[in-house]
């Protein structure tokens, strides 16, 4: 083959040009992303991280529906000011079951990666309904409908099945359930069992009564349950403060 390279050759073959352009611009991504799949320290080995319960997962869906991520990140960076304000820096392991992750770099509001347990349920409910009644200088919109809207729980199992397809270990069969018992313990494994999804959701919502209203399960129940679990799965008191230095 007479390989006589000419601009003309590429410029007159638009398909070839598209392929070569794609190859050229994918180099930047590939050299940064591909090694992460081979480096064995990408995801820290840490205890306690589990997939969300059905109620928390529904709360997470609402979090995304309302676009909370446009103003709130869930990624505490390893800087002193962030540690003092938000707590321990986020680990990759902590978002391993997040699809999609909520990291982000746009913070109009504060980071929420460790907001769980920081405020009472009651505060969250009031703050979501009327943010300025709690934080006068806040620019957050009001979300009053969360309290008024009944949570649609009919498709809970379907939502968990979808997440299972992208790798979240929600169980369908007995074998998968047993594997979860080994991995997460029985209490958590029960919450991850898809056939019991609706029952588990109702139980957690009634027991937690996150919105302070016992008359039913609102979207507020789900969202507050989700907010209250954020960043609480890893007990950092079990780890030295440099436990995660060697993996970076």
């Amino acid at each position: 083959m007479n390989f006589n390279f000419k601009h003309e050759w590429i410029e007159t073959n638009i398909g070839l040009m598209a392929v070569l352009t794609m190859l050229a611009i994918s180099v930047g991504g590939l050299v940064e992303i591909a090694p992460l799949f081979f480096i064995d320290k990408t995801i820290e080995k840490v205890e306690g991280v589990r997939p969300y319960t059905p109620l928390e997962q529904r709360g997470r869906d609402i979090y995304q529906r309302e676009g909370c991520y446009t103003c709130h990140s869930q990624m505490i960076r390893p800087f002193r000011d962030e540690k003092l304000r938000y707590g321990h820096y986020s680990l990759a392991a902590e978002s391993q079951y997040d699809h999609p992750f909520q990291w982000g770099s746009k913070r109009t509001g504060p980071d929420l990666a460790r907001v769980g347990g920081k405020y009472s349920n009651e505060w969250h409910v009031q703050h979501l309904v009327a943010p300025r009644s709690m934080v006068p200088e806040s620019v957050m919109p009001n979300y009053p409908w969360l309290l008024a809207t009944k949570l649609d729980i009919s498709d809970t199992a379907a939502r968990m099945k979808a997440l299972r397809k992208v790798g979240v270990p929600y169980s369908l069969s007995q074998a998968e359930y047993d594997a979860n018992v080994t991995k997460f313990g029985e209490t958590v494994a029960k919450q991850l069992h898809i056939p019991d999804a609706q029952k588990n959701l109702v139980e957690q919502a009634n027991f937690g009564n996150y919105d302070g209203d016992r008359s039913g399960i609102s979207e507020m129940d789900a969202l507050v349950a989700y907010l209250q679990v954020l960043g609480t799965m890893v007990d950092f008191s079990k780890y030295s403060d440099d436990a995660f230095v060697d993996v970076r």
Partner: protein
Amino acid sequence: MSEQKLQSQTVQTTGHAWDGDLQEYNNPLPVWWVYTFYATVIFAVIYWTIYPSWPIGKGWIGGASNITYVNSAGETKTHSWNTRALLLEDLNQAAAEQKPYFDKVSAMSYAQIAKDPEMNGFILSAGKALFADNCAPCHQAGGQGVAGFFPNLTDDDWLYGGSYDKIHETLMVGRRGYMPAFSEVLAGEQIDQLANYVAKLSGIGHDAAKAAAGDALFRSETAACYYCHGSDGKGRKDIGAPNLTDNIWLWANVPASDAAEGKVAAIRGVIANGLNKGVMPAWAGRLSPEQIKVLTVYVHELGGGQ
């Protein structure tokens, strides 16, 4: 015309023509650009040797630059440059600067701190930042609270006690308020009588006849209000039952209405529906013992400390 012009140029073209006569010069790159490019290549090589760079197998090249830090176990460690080690170095440095103060906070008693102007200055500034980050969302920037939701920390009315030790306990383990809903056990009329009696206790407008009936109910085994609020209505700090005689209101938003009837209605609402709120989170796991001590003194000094 363009052909004649092109022939007069010494610069080569890329060698093809579009639309018959449209050609493209193949000028050499400007010299400054070429040297800048070479400089960036050299910069990249230097950068690779200093900072973590190329992945190799399951690991990567750590780079020549090191960071030395002291971990919480007191071991001095050196690690190739990364942001997590850098954070520890940064925290060590800040901790070293603050250590004399925090050591003093740990060592001194509350009474000693109160008398030491230098420590007071430190606690005022350190406490202000801690309070703004952690407490102000509920108790508000000045500690004034939110009527109906979060208690005022600047007055001398305390649900669980305003001594240093009690404030410290509240911060460490958190609190949870609870009052049963009396609509389940009392008739509406009885709740109205109790509300009038509670209004009377605080010296606000009430119906005297209803208050007298409420007085008896308060002490009866039917309502048994005195179990928690005491037979004098002054509350019990060990269980967080509020003093009902001081005309300071948290759960019943009494000051919100001007008319006596509205004030009594607010009290009635709390008696009827009860409370399962007033949750204060526990801070023991979130803040260091020294930080909690600083906050204890800061809250005590907001105005109401006992």
